[in-house]
């Protein structure tokens, strides 16, 4: 049985096509991630699947019901944590939970017990009587997760659940998500532009770019698309930049930032050979980085671009440099 079935989904805003005919299926009890850069159409897809936006064409079945024909049936069976906050900031954590429960048809002791259980699960029980406006970003996120679970949804949508949070809080929220899957066997549909998040959490990943799904599979399957170790070279004189030809080099790409990207079976063995080749041709290499393929390489391989925003690229570059030093 599938929790989500999407066929040829198209969503247009006027002339702009945000989602360009995507199809995918999510099995019950699995964590499925949409990975892609900002503006790829991930959030639009979530809003269509959660009945908040009307699709332009195609078909989407969520928790056994058509999002266009039976939006009310879909709404009863889903929970969602939006990318942007959606709490009532003037009210307390408890009141936010209580109002959600009432709207979803819960009440009495059943509701009270559920609120207590869930606020304890996200470790906010002691702050239950505090207005939400005094909560940190991470606490608000946790409260939103607890709230989305209150009515025991069959399918949970998490739209960029850790965006803007510090690394510690992110890891914390990942733990909750894993626990939800294990304890409740819940189907979780996740969108993210963090590769590590998709890799940590998702059973299967669909890589999305410019409104299309460009690859789909487990993290391992996706990495096999690239297959090889990846070496990045920076040359002293950019005019020397051209692809080296040698039998051990499986692939070569000139990058827009002035580096050469090489694919080899084993980087440790290939590097000395590359240095020899460079010496022979009198090309001076000023920087070398190499690593095992990541989902970012998959994205780069498929699109020729990096997945993340400018600022984050820097931190990744320094991460790779650190890994090299080890």
């Amino acid at each position, binding site marked *: 049985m599938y929790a989500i079935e999407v066929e040829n989904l198209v969503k247009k805003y006027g002339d702009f096509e945000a989602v360009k005919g995507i199809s995918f299926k999510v099995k019950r009890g699995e964590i499925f991630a949409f990975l892609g850069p900002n503006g790829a159409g991930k959030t639009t897809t979530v809003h269509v699947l959660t009945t*908040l*936006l009307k699709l332009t064409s195609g078909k989407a079945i969520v928790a056994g019901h058509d999002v266009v024909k039976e939006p009310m049936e879909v709404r009863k069976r889903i929970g969602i944590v939006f990318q942007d*906050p*959606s709490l*009532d900031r*003037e009210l307390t954590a408890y009141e936010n939970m209580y*109002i959600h429960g*009432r*709207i*979803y048809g819960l009440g009495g002791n059943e509701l009270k017990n559920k609120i207590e259980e869930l606020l304890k699960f996200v470790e906010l029980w002691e702050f239950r009587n505090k207005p939400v406006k005094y909560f940190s970003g991470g606490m608000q996120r946790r409260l939103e997760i607890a709230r989305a679970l209150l009515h025991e949804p069959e399918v949970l949508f998490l739209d960029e659940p850790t965006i803007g949070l510090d690394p510690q809080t992110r890891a914390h929220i990942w733990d909750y998500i894993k626990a939800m899957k294990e304890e409740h066997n819940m189907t979780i549909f996740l969108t993210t532009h963090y590769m590590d998040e998709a890799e940590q959490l998702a059973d299967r990943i669909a890589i999305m770019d410019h409104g299309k799904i460009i690859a789909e599979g487990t993290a391992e399957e996706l990495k096999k698309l690239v297959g090889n170790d990846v070496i990045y070279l920076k040359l002293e004189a950019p005019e020397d930049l051209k692809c080296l030809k040698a039998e051990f080099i499986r692939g070569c790409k000139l990058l827009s930032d002035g580096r050469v990207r090489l694919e080899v079976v084993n980087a440790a063995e290939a590097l000395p050979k590359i240095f020899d080749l460079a010496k022979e041709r009198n090309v001076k290499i000023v920087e070398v980085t190499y690593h095992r393929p990541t989902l970012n390489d998959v994205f780069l391989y498929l699109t020729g671009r990096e997945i993340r925003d400018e600022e984050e690229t820097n931190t990744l570059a320094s991460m790779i440099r650190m890994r090299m030093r080890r």
Partner: protein
Amino acid sequence: MRALTTMAYRQIKRFTRARSRVVGMIVNPLIWLVFFGLGWSKVFDNPMARAIFGGVDYLTFLAPGIFAMTIFNQSFIGGVSVIWDKQFGFLKEVLVAPASRKEGILGRILGDSLVTLTQGTIILLLTFLLAENLKISGILPALGVGFLLAVAFSGFGVILALRMESMEGFQMIMMVLMLPLIFLSGAMYPIDTMPSWMRALAYINPLTYAVDGARHFLVGENVTKFALTTDVGVLALLALFLVGVAMIEFEKATIG
């Protein structure tokens, strides 16, 4: 009924959270009542002026107007606050819920109206300290008139908010709408003394009928302009119409 009672509950809860705002809401009409009303009351303390104001002192004439003004202001702001729900995201939580949206927004309007009525009651009780000739027996029926007014302008605020993207345009709407509607309502001077073009505007101003209706109960027939059935009828029809439109518009609301 679930969505209705829950959303009404939310509005009332929010009101009890914001006590400092409550003080601010009451200060504004008090300023009108004391510095405007009490100030002019000495000027108008002569038989000729009393004749113009239906034979009562100026503060008694003004008090129902200030009451209606308070209700009108607060219910409109309450309705428009849907825009904050848009900006802070709570609207999405409501739209994605498996509950009747029509009921939800009706609950919100009713909750807001009850909150507004509480403020109106406080103002009304305070006016009794200043004005001499108000009827205590008129308080409850005047609150009834206030309720119709609150529901109407709450609904109007919701309709506006659903069409607005940010709070920026709102300041302008307030400036353009609020003061003229108050001046053209007969709250501060009788409609009959207005130039004819102003009087025409006063006739199509819903606030006029709320002020007049409140005067029926709080002061008496000699100060009023229209029949009580006209006042209540106009307000009731307007409230029904605006709430109806608000419910239909909210049903269609989407995000982004």
